[in-house]
């Protein structure tokens, strides 16, 4: 049976007219503009530091000289190679098996087979408990030997920057990586820990009811931070997740302003001096942690090891699974009977108390704290470290944090330390666009992020609260 169909479709000519674009509307020119803009930005970023007398100084030096011309020429060249080189490459060299494959395949294939075999074997090995224990023992042994290989300066860096930040990052990983909550006031709890050390060891202008050893301050600080975390989290964690970010930010500012302004209690901007160090005085044992950083390094390795073991146990427990459920889909988790607010609060408070422990360690190592040690900048820094390492993956977070805490010290002769936050900001954007799972991603997190990309699940607890959006 034939039916006559009316042709509603526009004619080919009209379609072509609709589709026709001006030559400059081709996406490749958009890419040209982008490349040149990036080059100019890099030129400005690598220019000299601005001066206080002349506003135009830095711009003049970076945009008003030949430098910018070279940057732009370089960008145009790069763009031309990418745009015109790629089609040429594909046309003349592409469809064949690749120009070098003929030579490389005999080498790469066996190597690939061997690595695959090795990987399968290590996966088997990893299941055996004593192999894992042995491996951990070797790593800890190497870490214990590490300070002997370094100069005193690097030992100080190891303790003051690397170890403290790793401790903080382990705690923040629980909040961001496992529960999927953004806490921008993490250093506030660090400050609470540090100031409680100062208070309980009698260094503050106000005397405590009784003095405590720095070791005994740890449980007190943990309790204080837990309480602060609960008080702050209880009203905000019921709301949509991103309120938490702004409230923690505000909380940080409040703690910072209290540290700075409550002169009679915290000694204000002058800071607190003479905080007592860690020491053990039980029976025959009589030992003090003094100025040498190496004993602190051992102590911090000990604390970190305990925390890591505890958190790894937690991750695979009922609690850890509840966090995963909340992160992947809060509404579904709540519908299946997970008390979401309770578990979010738990993650928040556990993170807060870890931060408190780090604060105690920091205060008694440095023996001097001032409000300037607790800037908001450091909160953001820890967040950046956790993201960089790979949120949710404990090993990734530790290695990423250690690397990023070490890098500025290493680079400080070549790059102005003030500029590092500029690069850090750029790094965060690029990470979020191209590698949101981080350096060493957690397998589950990686899958969640790729599922979110396909439109399934949330991959964080930042979306609507259980029960839907409030209108």
């Amino acid at each position, binding site marked *: 049976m034939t039916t006559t169909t009316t042709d509603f479709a526009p004619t080919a000519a009209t379609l072509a007219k609709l589709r026709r674009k001006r030559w400059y509307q081709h996406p490749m020119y958009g890419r040209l503009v982008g490349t040149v803009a990036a080059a100019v930005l890099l030129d*400005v*970023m690598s*220019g000299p*530091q*601005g001066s*206080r007398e002349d*506003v*135009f100084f*830095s*711009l003049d030096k970076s945009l008003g000289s030949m430098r910018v011309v070279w940057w732009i020429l370089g960008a145009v060249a790069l763009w031309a190679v990418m745009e015109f080189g790629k089609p040429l490459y594909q046309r003349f060299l592409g469809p064949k098996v690749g120009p070098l494959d003929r030579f490389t395949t005999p080498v790469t294939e066996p190597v690939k087979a061997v690595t695959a075999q090795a990987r399968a074997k290590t996966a088997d090995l990893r299941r055996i408990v004593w192999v894992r224990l042995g491996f951990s023992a070797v790593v800890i042994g190497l870490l214990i030997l590490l300070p002997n290989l370094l100069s005193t300066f690097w030992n100080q860096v190891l303790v003051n920057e690397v170890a403290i930040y790793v401790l903080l990052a382990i705690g923040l990983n629980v909040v961001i990586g496992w529960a*999927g909550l*953004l806490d921008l006031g993490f250093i506030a709890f660090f400050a609470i820990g540090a100031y409680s050390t100062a208070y309980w060891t009698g260094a503050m202008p106000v005397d405590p009811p009784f003095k405590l050893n720095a070791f005994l301050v740890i449980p007190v600080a943990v309790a204080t931070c837990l309480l602060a975390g609960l008080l702050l989290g209880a*009203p*905000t964690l*019921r*709301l949509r*997740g*991103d309120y938490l*970010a*702004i*409230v923690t*930010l*505000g*909380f940080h*500012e*409040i703690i910072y*302003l209290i540290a*700075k*302004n409550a002169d009679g209690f915290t000694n204000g901007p002058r800071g607190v001096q003479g905080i007592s160090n860690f020491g053990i005085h039980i029976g025959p044992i009589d030992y003090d942690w003094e100025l040498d950083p190496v004993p602190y390094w051992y102590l911090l390795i000990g604390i970190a090891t305990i925390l890591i073991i505890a958190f790894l146990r937690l991750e695979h427990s009922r609690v850890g699974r509840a966090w995963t459920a909340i992160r992947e889909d809060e509404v579904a988790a709540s519908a299946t009977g997970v008390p979401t607010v309770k578990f979010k609060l738990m993650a928040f408070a556990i993170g807060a108390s870890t931060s408190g422990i780090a604060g105690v360690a920091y205060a008694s190592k440095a023996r001097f704290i001032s409000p300037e040690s607790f800037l*908001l900048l450091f909160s*953001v820094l820890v*967040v*950046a470290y956790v*993201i960089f390492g790979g949120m949710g993956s404990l090993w990734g977070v530790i290695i990423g944090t250690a690397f990023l805490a070490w890098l500025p010290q290493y680079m400080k002769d070549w790059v*102005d330390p*003030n*500029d590092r*936050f*500029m690069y*850090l*900001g*750029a*790094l*965060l*954007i690029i*990470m*979020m*666009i191209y590698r*949101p799972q981080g350096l060493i991603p957690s397998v589950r997190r990686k899958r969640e*992020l790729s599922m*979110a*990309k*396909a439109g399934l699940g*949330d*991959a*964080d607890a*930042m*979306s609507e609260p259980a029960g839907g959006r*409030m*209108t």
Partner: protein
Amino acid sequence: MQPDEILDYLIPGIMLGALYAVIAIGYTLVYGVLQLINFAHSEVFMVGAYSALLALTWIDPSTNPTALVSVLLVAAGLAVSGTAGAATAFALEKVAYRPLRRRNAPRLAFLISAIGASYFLQNLAGKLFGRDSRALPTLFENKKVFSVFGTQVTILQLLIVCAAVLMMVGLDYLVNRTKLGSGIRAVAQDAETAGLMGVDIDKVISRTFIIGGFMGGIAGFLFGLHLQLSFTMGFLPGITAFAAAVVGGVGNIRGAMMGGMLLGIVESFSSPIFGESWRYVSAFAVLVLVLMFRPTGILGERLGRSA
């Protein structure tokens, strides 16, 4: 504080509140269409102030400008800072948010990217223009215009409040009466459906950023007339304004105006009552209180129903 001093704090409070309201609108607009705290909005504010500084230093006004020159200089400052703010916000959306939207990234990723953009812009400005605070060149003599019950009102205060009110009225018209405005409201209510109805979501989002950036840039310039400029100048007004947006009901434009006014006045009064050094705490105290008792803000969240 004496009862007759109330106006001495109320009038600066209104001025501050008008500025906060204008910045808060930028947050609330973006929150409406993207459900995202645009942390980098405070940097748009800073860029607005610095662009005006660059332009006005380049013009190099004489120390005692005549009335006409003053008006022209202020107009130039407004135009430059608005344009620079809009351009920054546009670029920000293009670089830091659009690629994430393409990838359907979780909201945590958006927030982190926003913080990254904020730190990048802040420290870039610190590098380019030095890390010391600066002042805008003197554009006009800050004379008293008239007095209300004995309290003097200065030209600056009048200028800031008038500019803010004009912008808010303009925005209200734009959002409620124009085609772009209904696009913004449609995307805020339900982006997916709006897309199916033929709203070009990308264009609407981009223009929303431009509008917010324009207002934020101008607020930066006006703030610079009032206080000193520094590369971190955006931070405190930024979070106070965000708090204002939440207090008024995030996504609700009139709520943002009201919340801004409220926090400005509260901040102004908290300095004589609790002491100068505690004034910045007041905004967060109000924020936490409001969130505890009325989590959707005073006027309520009305994503898309901005009227």
